[in-house]
């Protein structure tokens, strides 16, 4: 095997980058929470635990998670299991729609249901009121936030569990059916328990996702003064004078709390994976569709209802809001004025360029760093590479708002001032999405048998040559899928631009949010449609290009 002169520099470069991206912001966050003008203090932590409004925020955040996650799990698992294992109609449609729901920005549902279910003027409330004299819904409430958060989480649960089920041989279920078990009992006692690790993973990530979610609590909770972690930090940081230290202390408390839960969760997954749930063997597996007879249509109807609530209705409402000549009078007269107004806004060309530039840079840098980390950790394991791998993974345990505040602290002052540039947002996003990307590459490299790379090395290739000429081409689908995922995640990220953008670095997501906040509902809706078209366009282009080069995407 040839010696790589670039190996050491590449490793240390990626290690320094990981330190700068993930450790530095968190170090600043902790330092910020422990300092005051007088010096070191724990006073901010005391304030965080004693002020009524802080305790209420912690309680609200817990309530949101405790309600949303179980409901999303039930809906997601139900849809995934029935789509994967039952012979029901519209399975392909439900799969596709759930992918669309997964990549959709969370504010689509919030905007739509704010219009339909606001307590006095919501369209559904007005209809029910006309029929039975009652306005039953109030979307500007904890219930409303839970409802939209469930719609946001459900596709993630669905796709994760579905993917796990797709990998499991149906012979276990077949055996149960042969021994006289009913299809429903088979699903409940065989299929669902088999994907326990995936469900635990979903639960952990759902918790982090909920505590990182900003748009839904901001659009639906803030009008009723229901603050959760993300919106309360925004409130503390945006007042004058800002309460930076208190915000940091609260962020650290949440990070420690979430980190502990994630750590416990992963321990649980590891334990679960240690033998009991190893159901993927070396042999190919077959899939069996269970026949549930008369329940086929009702189950399909439930799946369609979930999809309609999560995707169809919100998109129709947003489209209506963007095209209606008079949303205040529920007019059906259409106009393109809001779309044209938004597209011709003086700042729009720069906003679109910023959005695409940020997403592209995040996708490229994120994928490069994650692939390097995964490669060193899996192919050239050492203590150092293991440590770098752990450091790359731990932003997963830090709620997004807390992390972005750390990034702001880290890069707003000399010696390296990045505040006001797109680069600070690239850094924040790469770090936040690094755990996801690294895990994708680890999974991808796991699928390639080492013998292929060993063969290359035997023929005289260096390890980096092997990576470039063997490993990367073999995991090209994973590389493309990860880059696309990073691109989409960057585009729909609201927290990073809300906290870190300046007039010259505004992006589409923050523009839509500000439009909504200013009561420019039709313009916000038009912006959302453009946003979705841009995202869809990128996806379709990737799909065509890759299909021509023989790579299969979702």
């Amino acid at each position: 095997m040839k010696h790589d002169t670039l190996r050491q520099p590449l490793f240390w470069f990626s290690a320094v980058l990981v330190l700068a991206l993930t450790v530095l912001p968190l170090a600043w966050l902790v330092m910020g929470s422990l300092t005051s003008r007088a010096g070191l203090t724990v006073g901010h932590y005391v304030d965080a635990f004693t002020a009524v409004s802080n305790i209420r925020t912690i309680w609200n955040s817990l309530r949101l998670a405790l309600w949303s996650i179980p409901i999303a799990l039930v809906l997601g698992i139900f849809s995934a299991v029935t789509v994967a294992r039952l012979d029901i109609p519209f399975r392909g449609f439900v799969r596709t729609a759930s992918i669309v729901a997964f990549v959709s920005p969370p504010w689509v549902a919030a905007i739509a249901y704010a219009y339909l279910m606001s307590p006095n003027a919501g369209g559904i409330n007005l209809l029910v009121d006309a029929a039975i004299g009652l306005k039953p819904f109030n979307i500007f409430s904890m219930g409303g936030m839970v409802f939209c958060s469930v719609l946001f989480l459900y596709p993630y649960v669905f796709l994760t569990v579905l993917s796990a089920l797709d990998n499991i041989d149906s012979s276990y279920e077949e055996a149960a059916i042969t021994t006289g078990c009913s299809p429903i009992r088979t699903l409940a006692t065989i299929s669902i328990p088999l994907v326990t690790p995936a469900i635990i993973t979903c639960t952990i990530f759902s918790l982090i996702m909920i505590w990182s979610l900003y748009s839904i609590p901001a659009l639906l909770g803030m009008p009723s003064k229901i603050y959760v972690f993300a919106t309360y930090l925004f409130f503390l940081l945006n007042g004058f004078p800002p309460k930076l230290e208190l915000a940091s202390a609260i962020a650290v408390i949440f990070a420690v709390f979430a980190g502990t839960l994630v750590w416990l969760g992963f321990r649980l997954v590891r334990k679960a994976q240690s033998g009991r749930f190893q159901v993927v063997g070396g042999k190919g597996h077959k899939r069996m569709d269970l026949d549930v007879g008369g329940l086929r249509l009702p189950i399909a109807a439930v799946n369609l209802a979930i999809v309609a609530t999560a995707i169809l209705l919100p998109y129709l409402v947003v489209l209506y809001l963007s095209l209606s000549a008079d949303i205040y009078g529920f007019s059906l007269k259409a106009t393109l004025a809001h779309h044209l107004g938004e597209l011709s806004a003086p700042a729009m060309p720069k906003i679109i360029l910023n959005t695409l530039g940020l997403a592209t840079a995040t996708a490229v840098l994120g994928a490069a760093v994650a692939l390097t980390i995964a490669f060193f950790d899996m192919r050239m394991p050492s203590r150092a590479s293991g440590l770098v791998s752990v450091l790359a993974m731990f932003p997963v345990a830090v709620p997004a708002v807390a992390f972005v505040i750390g990034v702001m602290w880290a890069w707003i002052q000399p010696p390296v001032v990045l505040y006001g540039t797109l680069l600070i947002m690239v850094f924040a996003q790469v770090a936040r999405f690094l755990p996801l990307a690294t895990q994708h590459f680890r999974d991808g490299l796991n699928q390639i048998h080492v013998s292929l790379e060993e063969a290359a090395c035997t023929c005289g290739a260096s390890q980096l040559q092997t990576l470039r000429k063997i490993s990367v081409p073999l995991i090209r689908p994973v590389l493309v899928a990860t880059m696309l995922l990073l691109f989409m995640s960057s585009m729909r990220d609201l927290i990073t631009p809300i906290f870190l953008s300046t007039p010259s670095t505004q992006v589409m997501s923050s523009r839509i949010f500000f439009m909504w906040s200013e009561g420019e509902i039709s313009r916000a809706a038009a912006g959302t449609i453009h946003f979705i078209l841009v995202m869809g366009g990128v996806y379709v282009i990737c799909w065509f290009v890759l299909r021509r080069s023989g790579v299969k995407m979702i």
Partner: protein
Amino acid sequence: MPYDHRFSRRNALGLIAGAPLALQTGLGRAWAQGGGDLLEGARKDGKVVVYSIFPQTVESLMMMQYQEDTGVTMEYSRIGGTNPTLQKFYSEVKVGQYLTDVIVLEKSAAIIATNDGMLASFQPPNDASVVEAFRSKDGYAHTVIASFHVAVYNKNLLPEDQLPRQWSDLTKPEFKDKLVVGSPENSGSAMVMIKTLVDMYGWEFFEALAANGLIETNREVEGADLVARGERVLAVVAQTAPAAQIKAGAPIGIHFPDRPIAAEFAASIAAQAPHPNAARHFLDYMLSERYQTRVATDLGGYSVLPNVAPPAGLPALSSLRVEPFDYAKLLEEREAILEKWRSVMSA
């Protein structure tokens, strides 16, 4: 082919149609040419960055007019209400990020920034035309929009004969669960409104409103939007808050109860403005008749120039009883007001 001098019908129609545009462009050029040395300096700087607090779809277009008139690039940003805007400005300056040239804030916030040495003094030539009451004495904070806290109501839900005659009427049962105000943590003018009403009626007034189902929104424009959509019936917000909704055809009315509560919005130059010459010229532009006319027509506020008409359908500024406001006292009591407000609204 010889040039045809005949004046065809198409020429005539084109001339008529193009006249307002030509006039506008002409006015713009005339204004820009009148800038003299200031304009030359602005063009040398090439760019001006403005942080402001008004509805951006309306205000950004008004400000972009400057770019069209002068060729100087205008970069506009609306961060939020007065307090988030001031906070962002301070955060940037604190770490040596001098990004802003001109900042528009509610006047009390501009005074805070002046006292903290964050602003530069400058007397633009157009300041001489401003109504004496609004003229800046020290050149730090120039009132560019005069506004009032009014009752912004939904015309479909509240008949005119049921409108409040005085602010104290809002505590009556007929306004239960119908009212909304902006949050003083976000909006500087909401702070002025609260201070004025507390001086008039004491904190009991707001305690009674809170008991009557008063809600608050972060931004005053959000409160105006709730009224436009029929979620709430009446908002006590600055008259400029519903500009975007009125433009979109919302059924919104503006009503002045017995004592309108004045709020001034001031433009200032940042002490460390990266484009100081452009900032000076832009400030002069904001006090020009060209911009001030649009303050009334587009933004729905009162101009600070005496010869500009009031917003459509609103009384002349001179006919309104405007009480002087003690900004120094507000700044003294600011923290206490915020604390008391939070306890009243959380009760």
